[in-house]
């Protein structure tokens, strides 16, 4: 993975740190930090680095680039006000904030909100998408590079409970998966201009999953997920490289580990990717490893799924054989993230729990009650973990220098 980061940095012309967390579930789209040490003690009194108030709602995860933490929010009577905010990672001070007006539909089910999808970055610029399908690209200092109103350009691509697919950036292209019953497409937007490099018609079905980026055969590939399967796409051209057809979940997203892709399909399906980017091959399926809203995560040869009620299930990533289950304090919407052999799981009630996966049947070794509803997947950077609610952003871990 370090080689992948180095190659990405070379392609992009700038360096990405292993501590950076560039998109939903981190730079590698798998929820696993490249760092080796995270906070095992989650204690608001002892290990809270800082917390900051937020001006609006959000299910999106923070992303972290160097000393900057970026968060999106939505506010106003119809959540038509879109916010992108940058904080100092070191002390939580707000560096800048930009606001925009939604040009697309903002109707959402009450549990979710317009700032549901997580922004993404190439390390130099950030792109933020909202449920209204508005996308803004800013540099790290908040200078506007471009704005797109996909909800205005393609008004039937929306649904009435809210969109949530996060962006990924690969090969100088921001990939936006905008899929609903009314209209469905995935667009590759040029990171310099926001113009469509390509636009793929997609299955007309609601889809809340997020694409992932993987590197095979010396090139980056974006994997799109829909109810009908997954599709490998060249990010620069939009060319479909392969398709794997099967019934796939439209809520939890796939995750990648080594040359294996773990797909929420028939419970969980493990696919092996060829070295040259050819169509993946099915290795196993397990109905006992069915994920809920949270996406699966793989750690040290073990694959973990978390159902909505809070049952964490561990299986062997090579075989799909279930090994143990652990009851956490649920319910859950957020996907777990990991450092070393520790999983960080935060419940909808705001109870963050650290699971030591090296124990024979897993063990909750620490927890903290944030005291607020948390639906957002946490982010990890610099030995600290970031949680966000509708009202606050917390950094728990190393105190400010």
């Amino acid at each position, binding site marked *: 993975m370090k080689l992948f980061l180095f190659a990405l940095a070379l392609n992009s012309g700038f360096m990405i740190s292993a501590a950076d967390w560039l998109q939903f579930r981190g730079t590698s789209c798998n929820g696993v930090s490249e760092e080796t040490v995270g906070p095992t003690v989650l204690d608001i009194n002892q290990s809270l680095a800082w917390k900051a108030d937020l001006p609006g709602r959000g299910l999106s995860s923070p992303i972290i680039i160097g000393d900057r933490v970026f968060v999106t929010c939505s506010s106003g009577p119809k959540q038509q006000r879109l916010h992108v905010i940058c904080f100092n990672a070191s002390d939580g001070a707000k560096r800048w*904030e930009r606001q*925009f007006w939604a040009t697309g539909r903002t109707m959402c089910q009450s549990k979710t909100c317009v700032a549901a999808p997580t922004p993404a970055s190439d390390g130099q610029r950030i792109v933020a998408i909202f449920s209204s399908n508005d996308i803004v690209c800013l540099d790290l200092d908040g200078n506007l590079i471009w704005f797109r109103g996909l909800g205005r350009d393609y008004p039937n691509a929306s649904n009435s409970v809210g969109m949530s697919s996060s962006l990924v950036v690969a090969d100088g292209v921001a990939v936006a998966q905008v899929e609903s019953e009314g209209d469905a497409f995935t667009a590759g937007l040029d990171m310099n201009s926001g113009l469509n490099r390509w636009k793929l018609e997609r299955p007309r079905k609601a889809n809340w999953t997020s694409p992932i980026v993987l590197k095979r055969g010396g090139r980056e590939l974006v994997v799109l997920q829909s109810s009908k399967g997954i599709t490998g796409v060249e990010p620069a051209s939009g060319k479909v490289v392969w398709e794997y057809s099967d019934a796939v979940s439209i809520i939890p997203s796939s995750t990648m580990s080594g040359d294996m892709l773990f797909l929420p399909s028939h419970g969980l399906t493990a696919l092996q990717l060829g070295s040259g980017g050819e169509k993946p091959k099915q290795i196993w399926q397990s109905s006992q490893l069915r994920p809920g809203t949270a996406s699966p995560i793989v750690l040290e040869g073990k694959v973990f799924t978390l159902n909505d009620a809070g049952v964490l299930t561990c299986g062997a990533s090579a075989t799909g054989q279930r090994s143990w289950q652990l009851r956490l304090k649920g319910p859950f919407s957020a996907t777990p993230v990991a450092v070393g052999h520790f999983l960080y799981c935060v419940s909808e009630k705001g109870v963050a729990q650290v699971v030591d996966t090296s124990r024979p049947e897993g063990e909750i070794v620490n927890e903290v009650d944030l005291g607020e509803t948390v639906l957002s997947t946490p982010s990890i950077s610099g030995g600290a973990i970031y949680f966000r609610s509708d009202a606050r952003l917390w950094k728990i871990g190393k105190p400010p220098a």
Partner: protein
Amino acid sequence: MKHILGILVATTLASTAMAGLAPQFAEALHVIRAVGPEGRGNVEASAAWKKLAMGKADTLLPILEGMDGANDYALNWLRAALDAIANRELSGGAKLPLPELGRFLLETRHHPRARRLAFELLTQIDPATAEKLLAGMLNDPSLEIRHDAVQKVIDQAGQSLTASNKAGAALLFQQALNSARDVKQVETIASKLEELGQPVDLQKHFGFLPERKVIGPFDNTGRKGFETVYPPEQKSDLTGEYDGKTGKVRWQQYSTKHKYGMVDMNQPYGKLKEVTAYASTDFVSDRAQSVELRLGGKNSWKVWLNGKLLFGRDEYHFDSEVDQYSMPAPLQSGRNAILVKVCQNEQVEDWTTEWEFQLRITDSLGTPIVAAATSAQNGPNGNPTSSR
């Protein structure tokens, strides 16, 4: 008070702000205002934005004025530039031009969003004055400003209730209701007024159209009915008889008493699946005018105005709310034929029984447009034609 006076006497600066711009600023504004759909003009706008965002506090007014007549893409570019300038100037200790911002705010000819921005800047630099001004903005053309002004009255009414002044509270709630355009605020106020013994006729308040002719069911097996052109789309003949899904169908009168004006196709036809029906009504306008047709519902639908397709959504059973979809539309003077197609799919779960929609006609703020007359009879101009 002296700030308010200052705002009121500042009569010339804002109107001349554009004229005083350096040429490169004026050019940057021009370039940004030219952005359009699908990223058109983004490359040029990105360079122009950097120039614009380098401005000082004296460029805020020209940027706000530059929002007048701008499209929604350009508004966002301009807003981001204004945010950047204001944040930098305020954090650097510079003073923003309060009287000019206030005067801009008070001139309702300016773009509502630009005026809201002016209000927010004013709130940052002089919150007490902004608060006083808000009290006089209950009927503001900026929905965001109006929302805050109405909320202030709702809060005051709540305080009257706490003080056991029910009569005073009812008056304040009524005042808030007259100005409120936000649906949630209207619902909150109506609930309070009902508790106070003054129920609100929400169907009338929102202006939902209660009367229409309906015809159906037509076939929607495999969800193909959404695209299938049935006779009501081809020909306006309210005496016509056609082949429906299960036999001959003809137009019949339908009236709704639903609080939110729901036209429930399950009432005339029963709880059917994989079916399509149409509803037709005429709306008589006393003049040609631009309006919005606002529709809510969980089923697939299409809407035609005077035979022209306005929009359609092929989506089933997600969620529904008042004003879920807003469609700009030109009413002609006299009769206007509105035809709605509403489809039901094959799902059998309890939460998929709804086969309905609601529709109202409003101005851009959500104020209902009152018909000179409404009937469920199509006139000579009301022949729907296919959108193909």
